């Protein structure tokens, strides 16, 4: 009986599935191609390295953020968590003279706690994630100011600078961490029960509850993880600058969300995967890099990058729309 229909259906779906990923992959390739054609410096190893180093950070946060998007939530305080964690671990090194590595780990724990706090507030008080984290962004940013008055914490021991500045072979170390995070996260969501529960929650919270999935526990856990990942980005940035800055991470929340969506993660939950966020991050970073390489007038910068973001997220839906159009044509011609 309806085998045929369904077969058609599957191939249809798969092609669609791919098209989103491929579409965006194509964009990435295209941009790289353009960049290398129009700027002799793009493929310059140093440029690539600093580019990759930049995208390592947006990418890392994006991967974290996409986990939250998968359950239909988000965290706008990731940037502040990153800087506060960085500042704290900086203080522990400089003011308490803690061993740098211990201090870094402490910084990670701080991030974990801040993120988990968000999770607790949101799940226990049943708050809307977006507005709650707008609030917490203020709180964490504030604590940061209270601690530092906005001053940078300088003199971070050079022993740990390599974590931010160094390369493993040609690959910038922060990006190595990003890849590690990606692998772990992908394993989590593809292979572990918790990971699949994340999708289940994102698809249908109520049904997930009825199945006995500990929805709130998992939600809280993810917020914690995102805090941890943000903190990792934060401390790596400290190592990169050799100083802890309270001002870092301002654009990370929006960029991480944009990156995820560009990479095909739906804000409605349950759709897409963190690898996409990394591609999205790459696209965003390349835009920014090209803008400067091409010597785009500084006043045009935000206009251009904003525009490209819109283009980028349009691709997947455009491919759908176009396909629909095509279909219609084909069918019509076939009949008439």
């Amino acid at each position, binding site marked *: 009986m309806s085998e045929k229909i369904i077969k058609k259906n599957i191939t249809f779906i798969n092609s669609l599935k791919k098209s989103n990923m491929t579409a965006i992959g194509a964009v990435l390739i295209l941009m790289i191609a353009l960049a290398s054609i129009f*700027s002799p*410096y793009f493929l*310059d190893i*140093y*440029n690539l390295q*600093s*580019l990759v*180093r*930049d995208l390592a950070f947006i990418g890392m946060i994006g991967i974290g953020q996409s986990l939250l998007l998968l359950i239909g939530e988000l965290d706008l305080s990731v940037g502040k968590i990153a800087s506060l964690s960085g500042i704290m671990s900086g203080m522990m090194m400089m003011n308490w003279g803690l061993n740098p590595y211990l201090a870094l780990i402490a910084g990670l724990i701080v991030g974990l706690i801040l993120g988990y706090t968000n999770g607790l507030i949101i799940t226990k008080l049943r708050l809307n994630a977006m507005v709650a984290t707008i609030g917490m962004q203020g709180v964490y940013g504030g604590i940061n*100011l209270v601690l530092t*008055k*906005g*001053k*940078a914490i*300088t*003199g971070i021991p050079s022993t740990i600078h390599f974590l931010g*500045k160094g390369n493993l072979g040609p690959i910038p170390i922060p990006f190595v961490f990003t890849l590690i995070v990606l692998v772990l996260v992908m394993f989590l969501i593809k292979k572990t029960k918790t990971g699949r529960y994340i999708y289940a929650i994102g698809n249908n919270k109520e049904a997930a509850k009825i199945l006995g999935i500990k929805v709130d526990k998992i939600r809280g856990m993810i917020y914690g993880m995102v805090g941890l990942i943000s903190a990792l980005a934060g401390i790596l*940035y400290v190592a*990169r*600058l*050799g*100083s802890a*800055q309270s*001002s*870092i*991470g*301002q654009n990370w929340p929006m960029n991480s969300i944009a990156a995820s969506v560009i990479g095909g993660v739906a804000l409605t939950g349950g759709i897409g995967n963190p690898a996409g966020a990394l591609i999205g991050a790459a696209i965003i970073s390349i835009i*920014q*890099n090209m803008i*400067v*390489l091409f*010597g785009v*007038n*500084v*006043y045009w*910068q935000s206009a251009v990058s904003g525009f490209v973001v819109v283009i980028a997220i349009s691709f997947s839906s455009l491919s759908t729309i176009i396909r629909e159009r095509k279909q219609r044509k084909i069918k019509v011609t076939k009949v008439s």
Partner: protein
Amino acid sequence: SKENKSEVTESSAKVSKDLTFVVVPKCVHPWFDEVNKGAQAQAKALSEQLGVKVTVNYRAPVTADVAEQNTVLEQAAATRPDGIALDPLDYEGNKAVIEEIQKQGIPVVLFDASAPAGSGLTSVGIDFTEQATMASDKLAELIGEEGKVAVMQGVPTAPNHAERYQAHLDALAKYPNIEVIEGGIDNDSVEEAQSQAAAVLAANPDLEGYLNCDGGAAGIAAAVEEAGKTDQVTIVSIANLIDILKYVKKGTITGTSSSIPQLQGSMSVLMLWQVSIGLDIPKVIDTGIVYIDSENVDEWIKIVEN
């Protein structure tokens, strides 16, 4: 600082009532924290010499938004202070509110900004053009008046940053063998400075000098270090934020042309006090510019760090 004290004693007219002044910066920013330090110190000094309680309230908009700054101004005025020192985000935008406040008999002085003609306001601060020109000339000198120089913009909506940018361009124009290129824009953020500078360095392998217009120079320094071009690229920066000073000490930043925020703070308060006791005050108080490099960086690190 000594010379203020002497001024004070000269004009120690009898005042009995306690005094409250408000300092309103552009935003919460470490540079202004230095201003505040100076202001608090002056208040302390005055209290001691006058035997009345002089308090300085430091009220900052969270973001550098004229709207927000005006609100802070109005609401600070509502607490009936004896004077307000303001770093206007954009004088034209603050004008209205400033006038409202003056109407209420609350004296206002500006700091970190030049008072526009006809405003009749006293401004405590520096000439940003002079500050930037000093940086440019220093850089030119350091690179033997030839080579490629990048200039990074600050917060485009901050007039003083824009003024510095223009001044850099004008100053460098004097040197025929110096090629000026766009050095990106950092919006006073070290992070943005870092990634923009990185790309600029990549696009200009032959870059020799870097100038900037705000407090973000640490980002440029970090990028230069990452590029391993500390010997090739000379940075002369603006402002005396601690992370900048550290790079000066390290040598990545050769020098920085800095105003003296602490002095701006103390002079602002002093002026407000003089007005409060009915003295006339000069229209312009230039708190001077220092060029900080390996010579004097240590003492400045001391000043800023405590």
